């Protein structure tokens, strides 16, 4: 027998350790303090930046402790794991007692506890027998459960309500578990990536955020159209992409998405996140003779050398830029090219799309401008999958409901004792509650007042 007890001691000890609220306090504080680290040291940057910032030595130590991705480090996960065990053990430890309190048919009342708590007393000229039938309805009106017990010199009414509110705390704790499980599911079975799709084109895979690897999709995303509108100040007001999902080349779903209103398909969410200009491959150029006004048109691919009209030399477009800065002004999209006259040195040219007369400044015979570069956008999409989200959202709802119950409701008990004193009655009203003791005092006073009023209007 004794042996048995000794051998189960380590388990007991461990159980006690994990059931303690002291451990909770320590764990929560430690989580609070250590979480600061990752906000001071930028996370998931490239090693060179860290070495530059902290030097080799510190870098090695930080690396060892996984400081550069600390929220996914073994020790942080370990703290969270401990907290989880703590919550589970603590809940199991207390649940059976709570269960009995809540689901009992005949709740127990300890008159001594009532007498030691807040109470009101008054005397009345009626006998206890006369008061009994009048008092019971007053009490049971505001308490769900009420019973009356005869005593030697009178009677006692016990009443209570809100037993179920004792489950509120369990709701909060369960919600934390749901969040953790949901998060775990998301990190194992979900992904997060992005993809840029030029207008009119479609893709079958995305690039993962963490690894930079390509992730194939089971379907095709086509961007039919993209548009962006601006405020007067020039900041973007709304991005809008018209997307079609294709399965085996056949369209199955079509939706216009904007920021905050994604397309969801087969557990995968497609979010509008950015946009940009597609680098054009070909461009129609105009060459205008300054004197005659004669216009020549040529279509040029980027990097392709073309002969200039009137045997003025050769020209090649080297590069496209989505924003060209000229003396502090942003001229927007532009092509950069090189012009080689028949006998002279090559010169670098800028041909902004929106400013056709920009090249006049060069004071050459031929003015080069862009005829029509049909502007093409690409839409930047964030593509994610997270099967843990329903669980996490369930946790969110449970947490709020649990907090509401745990904080603002309570299990309240009241006791009304009536004792015969001479020809009169002495009435004692006492109330206890597991929370909000001051609120319970006020309630007890109110019941006491109601009872004395009730006694006042009794006949006899």
């Amino acid at each position, binding site marked *: 027998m004794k042996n048995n007890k000794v051998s189960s001691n380590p388990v007991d000890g461990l159980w006690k350790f994990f059931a303690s609220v002291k451990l909770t306090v320590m764990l929560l504080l430690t989580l609070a303090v250590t979480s600061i680290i990752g906000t001071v040291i930028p996370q998931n940057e490239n090693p060179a930046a860290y070495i530059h910032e902290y030097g080799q030595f510190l870098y090695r130590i930080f690396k060892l402790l996984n400081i550069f991705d600390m*929220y996914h480090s073994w020790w942080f996960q370990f703290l969270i794991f401990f907290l989880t065990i703590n919550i589970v053990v603590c809940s199991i430890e207390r649940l059976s007692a709570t269960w009995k309190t809540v689901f009992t048919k005949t709740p127990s009342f300890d008159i001594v506890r009532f007498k030691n708590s807040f109470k009101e007393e008054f005397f009345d000229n009626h006998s206890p027998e006369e008061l009994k039938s009048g008092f019971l309805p007053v009490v049971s009106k505001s308490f769900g459960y009420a019973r009356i017990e005869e005593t030697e010199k009178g009677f006692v009414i016990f009443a209570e309500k809100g037993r179920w509110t004792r489950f509120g705390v369990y709701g909060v704790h369960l919600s934390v578990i749901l969040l953790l499980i949901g998060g775990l599911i998301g990190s194992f079975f979900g992904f997060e990536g992005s993809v840029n799709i030029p207008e009119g084109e479609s893709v079958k895979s995305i690039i993962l955020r963490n690894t930079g690897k390509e992730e194939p999709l089971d379907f095709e995303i086509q961007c039919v159209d993209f548009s962006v509108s601006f405020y007067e100040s020039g900041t973007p007001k709304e991005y809008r992409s018209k997307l079609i999902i294709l399965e085996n080349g056949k369209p199955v779903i079509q939706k216009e998405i904007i920021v905050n209103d994604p397309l969801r398909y087969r557990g995968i969410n497609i979010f509008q996140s950015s946009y940009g200009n597609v680098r054009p491959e070909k461009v129609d150029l105009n060459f205008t003779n300054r004197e005659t006004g004669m216009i020549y048109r040529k279509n040029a691919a980027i990097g392709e050398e073309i002969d200039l009209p009137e045997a003025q030399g050769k020209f090649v477009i080297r590069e496209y830029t989505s924003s060209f800065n000229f003396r502090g002004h942003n001229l927007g999209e532009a092509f950069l090219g090189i012009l080689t006259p028949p006998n002279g040195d090559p010169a670098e040219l800028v041909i902004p799309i929106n400013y056709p007369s920009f090249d006049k400044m060069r004071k050459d015979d031929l003015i080069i401008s862009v005829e029509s570069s049909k502007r093409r956008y690409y839409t930047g999409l964030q593509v994610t999958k997270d099967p843990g989200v329903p669980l996490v959202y369930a946790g969110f709802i449970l947490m709020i409901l649990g907090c509401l119950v745990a904080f603002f409701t309570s299990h309240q008990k009241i006791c009304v004792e009536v004792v015969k004193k001479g020809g009169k009655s002495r009435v004692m009203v006492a109330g206890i509650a597991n929370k909000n003791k001051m609120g319970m005092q006020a309630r007890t006073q109110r019941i006491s007042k109601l009872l004395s009023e009730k006694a006042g209007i009794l006949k006899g």
Partner: protein
Amino acid sequence: MDSSNLLSITTFIYGLAAFFYIFSFVFKKPFAGRLGTWTSLAGVSGNIAGIILRWVESYRLGIGHAPLSNLYESLVFFSLVIMVIYLVIERSYSNRIIGAFTTPIAFLSMAYASLSPNISDRIQPLVPALKSNWLIAHVISCFIGYAAFAIAFGLSIMLLLKQKDEKNENPFLKVFPDFKILDELSHQMIMFGFLFLSAGIITGAVWANSAWGRYWGWDPKETWSLITWFVYATLLHARFTRGWQGKRLAYLSIIGFSAVLFTYFGVNLLPGLHSYGQ
């Protein structure tokens, strides 16, 4: 008069109210306390009118949105909630000393919003990511939570002062509410704050999930709100362990409010992406 002017005047009125409460406390003049109440009510009216006017102005500019979209607007809302919660407490506990410790916070917050050169009071158009009802719910819940914590902070300072004077001899501390009442009240504020902070973090997560497809990304602002949440969760549990009563809880509440302030102002000094509030 535009909303910025109205809110500047409100700042002044809050300053006056705080002055009256402190004057009443220090010089034991009840009439100054009553003046404080009336001044506070005037300030609250100005504050509400300012927020509504700002809302109307944004529609006149053609960029209509709820006035809860940047640091200035959130500070203005924060002050309003502090004042309203305080006035409710004043009414239910019939004690104006608490005003000397809480209304200055509302005044400082308004003054910072109105006077700091780093905070623009211009009504700005919303970038696409901020156009979400979840964002409005997020800002409202967070700042109700922060306001409750601000009041708990004031009460905790009172608790620490009161505790120094066990024999109840100090004439200044005599007029404080009972230790028990201060303790209960600050606990209630913390529960109230914790509920709204939780709701704030949750609505923020839902918003992030609807805008970017992930509900949590460990960016500094998110992380700091979680740190704050951990601190107050610690406090709630510390009440159930012996040896963690009174003074220690008050210290935790002060640490908690410091975390709130850092989440609010400090995070912008850290490297990060949370565009909102800059």
